[in-house]
């Protein structure tokens, strides 16, 4: 049988090209270093000030070069996307289990809520060990972009809220 080989190198390739939300939204965008967590590991303030788009969020969650959440999580709603991972819990019902603010916190930096988790922080630009230049294996130079931009985080939060 022939298997489709998906290399990890392209798991999260999106960050280099996406950058921050632009235009009018930029004025209201909360920078990664300015995000405020409450004592429960949740982030109450929207990163963009505007509601996220759940359809876009589903795309971010399932696309290899964007969030690629399915690399680690199974999501029944995205069953037409091949190869869901088992590293993290099933995300069905995430919108019941968590509030919008909690989901935002998990996405920005899951380690605040889940100490020592393997889930990467998707909206974080500081404090890395041997940070590379995307998937080249070379050292990173210049400004660091988060894995997802503010709009993409809000879109994924909106999508997760539909998983009831």
């Amino acid at each position: 049988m022939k298997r489709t080989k998906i290399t990890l190198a392209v798991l999260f390739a999106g960050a280099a090209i996406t950058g921050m939300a632009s235009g009018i939204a930029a004025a209201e965008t909360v920078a990664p270093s300015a995000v405020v967590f409450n004592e429960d590991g949740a982030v109450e303030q929207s990163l963009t000030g505007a509601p996220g788009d759940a359809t876009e969020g589903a795309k971010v969650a399932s696309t290899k070069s964007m969030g690629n959440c399915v690399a680690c999580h199974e999501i029944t709603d995205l069953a037409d996307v091949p190869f869901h991972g088992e590293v993290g819990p099933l995300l069905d019902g995430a919108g019941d289990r968590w509030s919008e603010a909690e989901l935002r916190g998990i996405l920005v930096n899951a380690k605040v809520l889940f100490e020592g988790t393997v889930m990467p922080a998707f909206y974080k630009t500081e404090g890395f060990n041997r940070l590379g230049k995307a998937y080249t294996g070379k050292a990173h130079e210049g400004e660091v972009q988060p894995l997802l931009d503010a709009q993409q985080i809000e879109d994924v939060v909106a999508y997760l809220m539909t998983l009831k």
Partner: protein
Amino acid sequence: MKNGIAALLAVSTAFGASVATADESAELIVNGEIEMVTRTAAPAHMSDSMDEVISGWVFRSDQTQEMQQDDFDNPGMIWVESAMETWETAEGTENKSCADCHGDIEEMAGVKATYPKWNEGAEKVVTLQMQVNDCRENRMGAEAWGYDKGPAIDMEALLSSVSRGMPVNVAIDGPGQSTWEMGKELYYSRTGQLDLSCASCHEENYGNMIRADHLSQGQINGFPTYRLKNAKLNGVHSRFKGCVRDTRAETFSPGSDEFIALEMYVASRGNGLSVEGPSVRN
């Protein structure tokens, strides 16, 4: 030959995927005679992290597993044959071959199982490739081979092939201990923007799917490995480099002190498993 029902059950856990995962109870016997230990009790130094160590072979699909069961089906053996020629070819200012000093290749059975190890003369831990280069430079007067490059990997595969079935037995105490400690620290250090360590994937998540990949324990008893992905033999340091790169980190180089130490540590995590190289992986 394999238990089809077990394989099917394994597949059903890979949600939405038609990935053929391995029959985890299969046994590896090469050429109908070399019985490999693919699962065994973890060495004592790992007692606080896991009970059992498992060869990467166990996690591969039935088809990939089968390719390693017979040398005629194992594409890695082509390079073993070419290294056999090199073994007998005189080179360098001394005009000597490996065979001139070491005799028959079978004399080298058991060597691979103990590397990397402390070298008295060099006063440091050396990998098998470094030892081979030492012979080339200092006994043959020939040029050193590049780390993990064609001829070096082929020779490592040849040396491994004659140790197949013997237990990996890397010493972790004595003068090499500080190198081993450094390797251990690297193993547990998270790197890159994904902030993952070797342990994040190969200790905490072996047996789980990560996208289309079935995570193994990341053991190196099967190296060099022939990979279907790039259709050639792959070295340990090149594999480490790929895994570190995939955390979106700046990697270390093949042959670096860091990867020598990491190789020593990872090899010792497989103490008790059989030497399998050249193995077949996807």
